């Protein structure tokens, strides 16, 4: 089967302004959404307790709420159905420091009499841990960006790196705009998803960049726009196909992974779509806008080759004992 049969070169950059506008609007909508609505952070960040309870019959949610109300640990607790009508999740911002008689034990005592139940999961995170996680998550994110900036600059050029970073931020902001809009729990798995999207986005972008570099090296074409158009057109089939396979697996995670994986699978699902879009329509476009100079780059490459040749010559001479 061939979805992309002809070696046609599309004028992606010609439509650049439209995509720029679309990205721009989405990006700032996402930022507005995140700053106004924020995230529903999970206990990993805020500290607190999550208790997952499974009843043998349908869970008596009203009764559970009624019983919990009497204890001040559960003053701000929420009780929601989780996956099936038998199961509920109780979430409270409170946590306990003692090891004996902790909040899990308390929950069990409180729920006694609401029916036949089993406590399947108790996650309790103290406030200190959440702070640490926030710092660590942010450090990891910034460090990764820096590492990418450095490698792409080293392998390509700083303008490529800058464009890649902007594309990454674009992908992540838009993705998490969706996370904010749909009020999906933002937990430690979401941080993993965030870093995954980052990795995926740079992966896609580099494949396109590699093609651009190849065209610069192999052709005499000095029109950078044409070079980019060709590179994007040629990699477009691969970008779409890989996105499809990744989309397949993320979709199965989303469908079968259940509510417990939601914090990971939902951002991934959006991230794959946005990442694919940006590597075709945004990342390469941005390199053009940073004022990349083909002739200059070729000259730099030529110098590199010259330097290498000179070094080798020197070494050869050295080895032969001439110098």
């Amino acid at each position, binding site marked *: 089967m061939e979805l992309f049969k002809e070696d046609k070169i599309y004028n992606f950059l010609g439509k650049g302004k439209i995509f720029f506008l679309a990205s721009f609007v989405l990006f700032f909508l996402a930022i507005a959404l995140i700053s106004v609505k924020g995230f529903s952070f999970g206990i990993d960040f805020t500290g607190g307790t999550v208790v997952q309870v499974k009843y043998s019959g349908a869970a008596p949610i009203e009764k559970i709420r009624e019983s919990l109300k009497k204890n001040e640990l559960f003053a701000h607790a929420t009780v929601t159905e989780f996956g099936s009508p038998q199961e509920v999740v109780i979430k409270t911002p409170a946590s306990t420091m*003692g*090891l004996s008689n902790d909040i899990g034990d308390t929950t069990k005592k409180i729920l006694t009499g609401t029916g036949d139940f089993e406590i399947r999961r108790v996650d*309790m*995170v103290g406030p200190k841990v959440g702070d640490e996680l926030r710092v660590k998550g942010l450090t990891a994110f910034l460090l990764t960006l820096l*590492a990418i900036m450095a490698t792409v600059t080293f392998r390509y050029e700083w303008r490529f790196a800058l464009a890649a970073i902007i594309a990454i931020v674009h992908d992540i902001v838009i993705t998490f705009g969706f996370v904010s809009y749909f009020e999906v729990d933002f937990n*430690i798995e979401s941080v993993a998803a965030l870093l995954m999207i980052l990795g995926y986005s740079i992966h896609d972008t580099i494949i396109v960049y590699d093609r651009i570099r190849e065209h610069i090296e192999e052709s005499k074409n000095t029109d950078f726009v044409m070079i980019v158009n060709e590179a994007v057109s040629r990699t477009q089939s691969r970008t779409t196909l890989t996105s499809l396979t990744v*989309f397949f697996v993320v979709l199965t995670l989303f469908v079968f992974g259940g509510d417990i994986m939601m914090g990971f699978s939902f951002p991934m699902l959006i991230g794959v779509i946005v990442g694919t879009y940006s590597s075709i329509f945004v990342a390469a476009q941005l390199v053009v806008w940073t004022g990349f100079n083909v002739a200059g780059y070729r000259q730099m490459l030529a110098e590199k080759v010259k330097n290498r040749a000179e070094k080798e010559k020197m070494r050869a001479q050295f080895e032969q004992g001439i110098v």
Partner: protein
Amino acid sequence: MKLNYRVVLLIIATIFGIIFSLPSLTQSERGAKVTLGLDLQGGLHMLLGVKTEEAVTSQLKSIASGVSRFAEKNDIMIDGLNASSDTVTFELLDNDDAVLLDGYFKKVEGTVVRASGGSYSITMTPVAVEKLKVQAVDQAIETIRNRLDQFGLAEPTVAKQGVDKILVELPGIKTQEEEQRARELISRAAKLELMAVDEDRAMRVNELGDAEAMGYGDKILEDALQPKVKHLVREIPILDGTMLTNAQVGYDQNNNPTINFTLNSEGAQIFGDFTAKSVGKRLAIVLDGKVYSSPVINERIGGGSGQISGNYTTAEANDLAIALRSGALLAPIYMMEKRSVGPSLGADSIRASLLALVSGFGLVILFMMFYYGLAGVIANLAVVINLFIILALMSLMGATLTLPGMAGIVLHIGLAVDANIIINERIREGLRAGVPTRRAIAEGYSKAMRAILDSNVTQILACTILYVYGTGAIKGFAVTLSMGLLASMLTAIVGSYGIYLLFMDRIEKNKNYTLWFGMTRKAK
């Protein structure tokens, strides 16, 4: 068909992958295996903090009780001996004894003694404080490990995290009752103190406030069995649990479980001396700040053994004896994070993630076969080998497979075919341009190689950072993904190329591009 080194390498990698992933797949007893994370097999995960500053306080208290013993032995008159959270203070009444006292302090390490007139204040040096804090954490880890070993749980993990945190993982915990018991055992301070009852003021205990009692160098403690009853004891204990050598469960005359403890020779000596001069007074047996009994001393008690009686069940007495034997915690611990997963939820998670794995895998395999024909089959083969290699590497490293780790593997299946897609698209491009098959394949690989390397190196970099800064389950995710990236470079770049080379003659002769590459080649 000619064997080439690439195919040989692929075969070796495949055999390696299968052999070392077999123990994990069959769950056999022998061989290195991947351990399932607590979120998959169920169990208790705790991150404990250590209140190290309290170790310092209790060290100061024991300095104070040393001073008190020394003074008594040498007939030095001191007054107002008091230990606060960072200093020990007292008044020396007769300045002639100062030399003797200074001699004593020279032998106590890590202290700074300031004396002006007759008032002494003793603090610990910052170095000694730091050392003590580190020691408190290490000792807590050791103690918790000892207690858990004696408790008889399968494969407990107790490890230091950062500077003052302890990670405890107990996969053996299946019910909430077990969990509660384990938590209590771990957290028990098990601090045994033998204290003198302040007989002069004991009658007024209910009128005294804590501050007032402290002024007298006393402390008000609750009774363990009747919380309303209060005891007034000397603040500085006669001796504590560090001098304990053994603790066993015994039974008293009413057949109630008790804990019988034995002191070492130094403890026995101090205990003997104290009881000899305190006949007629009471001795309080204090455990974790509660008075368990306060018998009247009838005569000098030698031999150094004693008994703690409370309303224990045999299991409680047993746990307490374990705690006493393994020693007191130098500093109290508290819960920073706890995750407990019931075994049924773990099983559900395994089922859900396996379902995602199988269906994701199925979709990708079908798609690749449909789209690329035999080239797709080769890519699929590479992915399967890839999975074996990931599992084998993880088994050999003794890595833990968590739920995010499973997600990482599922995600990886989608990403693993990418290298093959890049290569196949390149080959098709060449073929479409009319390049001969052999050259199209060779060029496809060499051109795709650079892109694959560049992007994978950046991704592995991202994974490394994720590993370094990630916590717990996230680390597992980073591990599976980077293993996968490495394995996919091997299988896609080296392995699948080898397979093409193996069949090259046939591909060239056969010329059925639909079958081999899933494409139609325009006749030229």
